[in-house]
């Protein structure tokens, strides 16, 4: 039996999430006393980087331009069966969430999506995840012999150990032609996607108008952060929907979340309160967000944000 982890590659390189996934899978395999194996679609130039987490074998599937998420899932399920995998791990993102269900059904597996802890075998197979959009944590027992899970981004911090060599095996399992034809992919270049971002700068209605966003963009750029927003500003079209974090938007858990001109309604807090450190900048001392913050600045954001950007720039230069 083994642990199989789906390694995400994009444009021939590892996606950031793959580091955490490889580390998590190796740790899980150690807890379960099993071997660990990765599976990746297509060539991945920096796959040897995963050796630093102790991942030593990766099955490589040949890409098929006519494949789709269903046929990729079928091939991954085939690899899982060939490896007698009892635990299959995906990232809890748009890739993992579209593959996981199909793999699980093919393997007659139990599922748990969005886990945030390593499994424990002290009392059956138990594992936890956040529920109620971050308002609580639930520990689940999984009863099925085969389990398929997805890992919420930024749940464990990958630590390097001794660097091992990763053996790549070209799998003889084929990705069949699919029925879903992707005709276009549009991505904003250069930014880390929100669910994977460790640093996030987010702004809300306190910004007063969409034209005022350059100060947010500048702060994010100096910090190397991804931008986000609250629901009202996405709803009125000031910012794109994919930036909306909160209960009905994206749930995130970055190391640093800077909330600017966001009051902190319970629905917004639900999506961001797993952030390690929260900074709130708001001129309203009654803003509920201050209660959920580590650091607060109660002042006009148009005064504070440029000063914070300047201070960060000075810090980065030193």
């Amino acid at each position, binding site marked *: 039996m083994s642990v199989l982890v789906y390694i995400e590659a994009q444009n021939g390189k590892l996606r950031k999430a793959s580091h955490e996934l490889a580390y998590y899978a190796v740790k899980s395999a150690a807890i379960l006393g099993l071997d660990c194996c990765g599976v990746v679609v297509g060539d991945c130039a920096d796959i040897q980087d995963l050796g630093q987490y102790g991942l030593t074998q990766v099955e490589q599937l040949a890409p098929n331009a006519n494949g789709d998420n269903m046929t990729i*899932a079928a091939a991954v399920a085939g690899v899982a069966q060939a490896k007698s995998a009892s635990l299959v791990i995906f990232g809890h*993102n*748009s890739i993992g*969430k579209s593959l*996981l*269900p*199909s793999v699980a*059904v093919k393997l007659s*597996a139990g*599922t*748990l*999506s*969005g886990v945030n802890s390593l499994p424990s075998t002290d009392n059956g197979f138990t594992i936890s995840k*956040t*529920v*109620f*959009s971050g*308002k*609580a*944590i639930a*520990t689940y*027992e*999984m*009863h*099925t012999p085969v389990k398929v899970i*997805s890992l919420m981004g930024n749940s464990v911090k990958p630590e390097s150990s001794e660097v091992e060599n990763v053996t790549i095996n070209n799998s003889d399992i084929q990705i069949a032609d*699919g029925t*879903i*034809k*992707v*005709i276009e992919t*549009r*991505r*904003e270049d250069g930014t880390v*996607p929100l669910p994977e971002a*460790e640093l996030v700068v987010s702004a809300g209605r306190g910004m007063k108008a969409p034209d005022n966003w350059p100060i947010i963009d500048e702060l994010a750029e100096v*910090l190397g952060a991804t931008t986000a927003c609250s629901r009202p500003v996405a709803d009125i079209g000031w910012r794109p*929907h*994919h930036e909306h974090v909160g209960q*009905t938007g994206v749930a995130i858990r970055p190391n*640093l979340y800077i909330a600017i001109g966001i009051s902190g309604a*319970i629905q917004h807090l639900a999506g961001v309160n797993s952030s390690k*450190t*929260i*900074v709130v900048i708001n001129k309203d001392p009654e803003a509920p967000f*201050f209660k*959920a913050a*580590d*650091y*607060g*600045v*109660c*002042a006009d954001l148009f005064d*504070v944000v440029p*000063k*914070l950007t*300047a*201070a*960060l720039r000075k*810090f980065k230069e030193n």
Partner: protein
Amino acid sequence: MKILVCISKTPETTAKITFTDGDTKFNEDGVQYILNPYDEWYALVRALELVEANGGEVVLGHVGPAANDSIIRKGLAVGAHRAVRIDADPLSAEMVAKQIASHAATENYDLILCGKETIDYNGAIIGGLIAAELTLPYVSFVSHLEVSGSEFTLTRDIEGGVEVSKVNGPIVISASKGLAEQRIPKMKDIMMSKRKPIDVIEAVSTDPTTTIIKYSLPQGKQGVKMLGPDDMDELVRLLNEEAKVL
């Protein structure tokens, strides 16, 4: 078009989350329930728009006990034509998907829609499980959907962008924000909804897959440290040295 919209019951978004029975059960005392927003605002409304444009019917599918009929009526008030309730407590994603798939296999739905996730257990995989059970194509997190004959053109949200795809139906999709605009039912619609049929069907038997054994609340913050607008160098120092996040 015949469309199945899968709906779930969730606590309302401002509900206070507490637990009972030694933190093993969600405390339902005083909790108001709503139709899961992704199911109601986006999946259901887009289904109604498609049927308004092309003819057909919108059927609600729900797994739950009779007490949930009041939630199903909300979906009927928004405009669905009828509902099917599979009479069982929803125990896990696998169990719910098997129930819905077992019903859908006996009907010729052109499209099965779910919300992208429920706002209580945030699984985001029911749609995919239903599709896999029925061996239908599955497209998740759809924020734009057009139909021409049996061909669907879908825009799907991915990290930092979108992916546009085409696929022939029948298909299963999960709806994300942007797919439609929320509709508020009028009093007349609410009255009408009481006369719309809810068919109750028996659940198929399934083996248990997962059980929640314990709940806990996230660790609260230690209290906020306030700084003045001119202390930004100090804030940066704290973020670096104390919080260690820079």
